[in-house]
């Protein structure tokens, strides 16, 4: 096989795989019977997985490399306000926390650079990073990314188009990646699918803040005893 294998099992997981493989193999060989065959096969698989750092099953499940999982959220929406106004609000990055509550604060250092403070699930507290605007075409496009050395790599892009009679069409991409290698686990924890849903909702909040001036909520309203769960079907 001449194709280069892309590793998709992290260091910790490789050590665990080899340890588990050794345990199963030892037990299987100690009292060798027909029933031991599955355990021995599994042991072999775990040894290969740990040794190569590549797992076909993980790959099949969608984990293509060690850097995964990352969060990439794409959203399109139409905001019933003129393009200039919509662009201006987003371009003032300090406004982002007004519709993205997971961002605690975004402070603009100068024209291009900004300091971000975020609270993220699983991170136990705030994380901070610096970002810079890498592309800025007034009323058309804003692109930013965190600068090197951030604990979490964040990047995003917003494009603005006219929607005749209906304001502005927007395409938004928002992404979080844990930095390559190193510092894996803590940063990786935040990148769960639930967080993706949160970001998606928060991007949609932009429209609500721009149009209605507030984010609709029921948090804090009265209710009777919640004796059962919400059932969608």
């Amino acid at each position, binding site marked *: 096989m001449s194709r280069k294998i892309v590793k998709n099992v992290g260091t910790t997981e490789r050590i665990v795989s080899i340890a588990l493989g050794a345990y199963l193999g030892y037990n299987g060989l100690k009292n060798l019977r027909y029933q031991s065959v599955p355990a021995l096969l599994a042991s072999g698989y775990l040894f290969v997985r740990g040794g190569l750092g590549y797992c076909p099953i993980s790959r099949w499940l969608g984990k293509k490399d060690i850097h995964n999982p990352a969060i990439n959220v794409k959203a399109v929406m*139409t905001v*019933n306000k003129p393009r200039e106004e919509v662009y201006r609000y987003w371009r003032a990055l300090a406004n982002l926390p007004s519709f993205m509550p997971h961002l605690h604060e975004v402070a603009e250092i100068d024209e291009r650079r900004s300091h971000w403070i975020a609270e993220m699930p699983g991170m136990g507290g705030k994380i901070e990073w610096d970002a810079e605007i890498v592309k800025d075409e007034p009323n058309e496009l804003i692109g930013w990314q965190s600068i090197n050395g951030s604990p979490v790599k964040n990047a995003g892009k917003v494009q603005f188009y006219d929607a005749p009679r*209906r*304001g502005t069409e927007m395409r938004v991409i928002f992404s979080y990646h844990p930095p390559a290698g190193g510092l894996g686990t803590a940063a990786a924890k935040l990148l769960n699918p639930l967080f993706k*849903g949160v970001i*998606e*909702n928060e991007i*949609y909040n932009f*429209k*609500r803040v721009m*149009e*209605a*001036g*507030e*984010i*609709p*909520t*029921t*948090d*804090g*309203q*009265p*209710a*009777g*005893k*919640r*004796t*059962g*769960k*919400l*059932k*969608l*079907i």
Partner: protein
Amino acid sequence: MKALCWNGVKDLKVEKVDDPKILNERDAIVKVTMSSVCGSDLHLINGFVPSMQAGDILGHEFIGEIVEVGPEVRQLAVGDRVVVVSIIGCGECEYCKDELWSLCDNSNPNGILQKKVFQYPTAGIFGYSHLFGGYAGSHAEYIRVPFADHGAFKIPDDIPDEKAVFVSDGVPTGYMAAEMADIKPGDVVAVWGAGGVGQMAIQAAYHLGAERVIAIDSVDYRLAAAATHSKAEVINYRDADVLDVLKESTGGRGPDCCIDAVGMEANSTGIEHYYDRTKQFLKLETDRPAVLRQAIAACRKGGTVSVVGVYAGFADKIPLGLFLNKGLTMRGGQMHGQRYVPLLFELIREGRIDPAFMLTHPTPLRDGPKAYELFNGRTDGCMRAVIMPQQATEHIAGAPSLINIVDKENAVGLPVCE
């Protein structure tokens, strides 16, 4: 405060809950004086609308008094007597600006969740499941009203409570049903369902120029009310073949406009009913569309079918071949109440629409579960039970007395359509 909560299928409880608070700057708090049951609540109570959770406060058709306003509320003041539209609209999105309030982009906090089911989010509704926002409802002493400047309307002094309360939902839904039916002078209009919305659709249809309106139902006292209060001809579908009668009575043409004011829990006769019941029970269809089928079948060629009865999801055996080949127009929607309220006040003042007769059962809050039982069972002449949360006793002082609905025996001599 006390509130009437959904606790499970056919299980309602009056519970002690926290008082509502202002949560957003455009909110107001309303002290509820009247809060009506509505046929669409029955779909929640009977378990046919998904995304309910034990503890949800029911109720969406109500009037009351403003007791607190948020800092961004401009048009309302403490003490105002208001009717609040059941549907919540932000007033600023493309849809609200076009007066399509029930399609508001911004009023549903669970819009993203709803998008997964309906593809696009629609407006929040008070007390009407979490897909529609999970807002606490009005069967309570107090309620929080978001975007209050748009949803709450001051009631003119000369319009009494027992008329104003239905301007929240029943009257605008019926009016919009008639408006969507595209009635032209001389038209014959058939209305399926002689409940509150059906009654209002009949009255609105006459106002919009209908020559004759025919009401179809199986509950005699409701047909009697349709005849006496709303001046319709009536058909009891248990006694007659509806399609035959409609054809016979319109010179073989069929009604020009057909209004479905029944929706997903339609009853029918014979094998069709058991077919739909079984499929709905097995969750192979969410809705029993017997009325929609009949309306499409009955409508004259080139006519209009207008749907305001609530449907939740999917239904079978809709005769699309008839719909296409007869060249029908079909329209539907949750009402855009904010668009109609001022006009409806005017029509009520002129006596062209009169909903007061629908208030058959004024009820203290603690009897809420009993009121829904009466209403769900179509018993005791119940058109609409109206909960009066500020009245603690069985005997409600100053409440309109029970309106004497013609009972079954007296129903002889009604203008039965034949």
